[in-house]
């Protein structure tokens, strides 16, 4: 065993200096408390109001109707998501490793049913029951064709109000406008959160629906929160946010992750590797020699080295 190791391991037998840990903590606590209080008083904290389905339906009805048609056509993000919500796809994979698929459907969400047809049972529009009956009586293929044709027509016209009425779309326009009225009257928000209990705490369904539309996405972009804007490590306004997630957000800004369809799982796996490296850093060759090679320690212990002529 080297002398160095002896010194590192042995209880320090050299000179000591008085060190009042409790006093240090109390002073630090008071100083940090005052600092936090001052910063809080000056800068406050962000509180951008939550977005509701009612707000979406009132401020962007065209986007709401287009998204509703997309839910019925099975073309939205939620409708095509896969686990844990449904089996519409396998989800992301890391080569042959398909953890998302293997984890299975644990939070069942059928967007067409959960976001559209079930809430429509509470519609007061007299045309909706017949439209629902026509929808439920049709084959899956027919349903998809109606909804896809209507989505395409909206896409071409740019707005559902400019789409000419046609039998081609079946009951979909009636259903979509019926849901729009439900949302505008503040009924839909409650319907999507109170299926289990009247005291909601699970916002999976309204949030998935909201995030399927362009309105919510636009609000995020305006607040510099998109993935290509360093995403969720930011906060609304000019607050620092979760800046400690920079190493996570960084990889979404660079290739090959930036354009990868499996970026989420690739970055997640890469971050897990980096975390392992962080935890076991003292065992990694070369990295664990850096403190010797780059002598910042001479600065930290400069008084000790000076006093001992080292």
């Amino acid at each position: 065993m080297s002398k160095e190791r002896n010194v590192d391991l042995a209880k320090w037998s050299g000179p000591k200096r008085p060190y009042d840990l409790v006093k240090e903590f109390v002073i630090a606590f008071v100083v940090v408390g005052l600092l936090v209080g001052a910063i809080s008083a000056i800068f406050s904290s962000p509180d951008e109001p939550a977005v509701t389905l009612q707000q979406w339906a009132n401020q962007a009805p065209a986007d709401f109707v287009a998204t509703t048609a997309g839910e019925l056509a099975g073309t939205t993000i939620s409708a095509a998501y896969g686990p844990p919500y449904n089996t519409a796809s396998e989800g992301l994979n890391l080569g042959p490793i398909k953890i998302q698929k293997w984890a299975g459907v644990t939070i069942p969400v059928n967007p067409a049913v959960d976001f559209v047809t079930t809430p429509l049972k509470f519609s007061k529009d007299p045309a909706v029951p017949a439209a629902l009956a026509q929808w439920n009586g049709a084959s899956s293929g027919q349903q998809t064709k109606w909804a896809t044709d209507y989505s395409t027509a909206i896409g071409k016209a740019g707005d559902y109000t400019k789409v000419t009425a046609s039998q081609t779309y079946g009951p979909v326009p009636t259903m979509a406008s019926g849901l729009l009225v439900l949302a505008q009257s503040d009924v839909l928000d409650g319907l999507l959160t109170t299926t289990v209990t009247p005291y909601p705490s699970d916002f999976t369904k309204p949030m998935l629906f909201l995030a399927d539309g362009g309105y919510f996405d636009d609000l995020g972009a305006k607040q510099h929160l998109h993935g290509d804007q360093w995403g969720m490590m930011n906060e609304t306004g000019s607050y620092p946010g979760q800046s400690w997630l920079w190493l996570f957000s960084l990889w979404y800004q660079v290739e090959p992750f930036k354009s990868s369809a499996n970026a989420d799982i690739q970055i997640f796996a890469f971050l897990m590797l980096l975390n392992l490296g962080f935890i076991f850093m003292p065992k990694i060759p070369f990295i664990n020699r850096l403190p010797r090679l780059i002598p910042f320690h001479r600065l930290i212990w400069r008084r000790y080295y000076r006093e001992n002529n080292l």
Partner: protein
Amino acid sequence: MSSMWTTKLRKATVEKFEPQDVLPDDQPSYVASWIYVFGVLTLSSFAIIILSGLILTTRGAIWWHSSNVGHFVNSMHLWSVELFFVFMVVHLWGKFWMAAWRGRRFATWVTGAFCFLASVATGFTGYLIQWDFDSQWIATQAKDGLNSAGIGSFFNTLNTGQAILLHVSLLPLVLTFIVIWHVILVRRNGVVPPLDAKEIAGGAK
């Protein structure tokens, strides 16, 4: 007597420490740098996080949206978290450049690393339970990464009730446990000596 579980537990814990080791009133002469302050600054900001969080907890999840006092307490919670991470990262870098894992202190480094990771998870769940646009955005963005790794199957970022319970109960318990463990290891093993102190070994000053 020695077969008693109580005896074994006492020997494995309490008897490992001298009172002087638990609350020492002196330190080796080399413990003389501002870098050492960042450990206690991290603990201080952690204490303010807990205190401000407890006030928010007692008044309910949405109190701070409708009360000026509540908003101020929320701001204190936010900024103490921001400072906590700043202090912790400086402390971490300091320990890296001191190669503070030397001399059977690897476990101290590992518990410190887990403190950082558990803090990230706890902070993340805090951002999910603000009941505002930030929560909505972060929850919808983060779900994809967690779902892709299968974690979304048992931790749903869009289930605010689940996130709030994790944030105010389980994760603080886990983090506090790791922090205490980390501090105990620091006290048991002492502060790492300077690099190259070997040159004066046999008469370590």
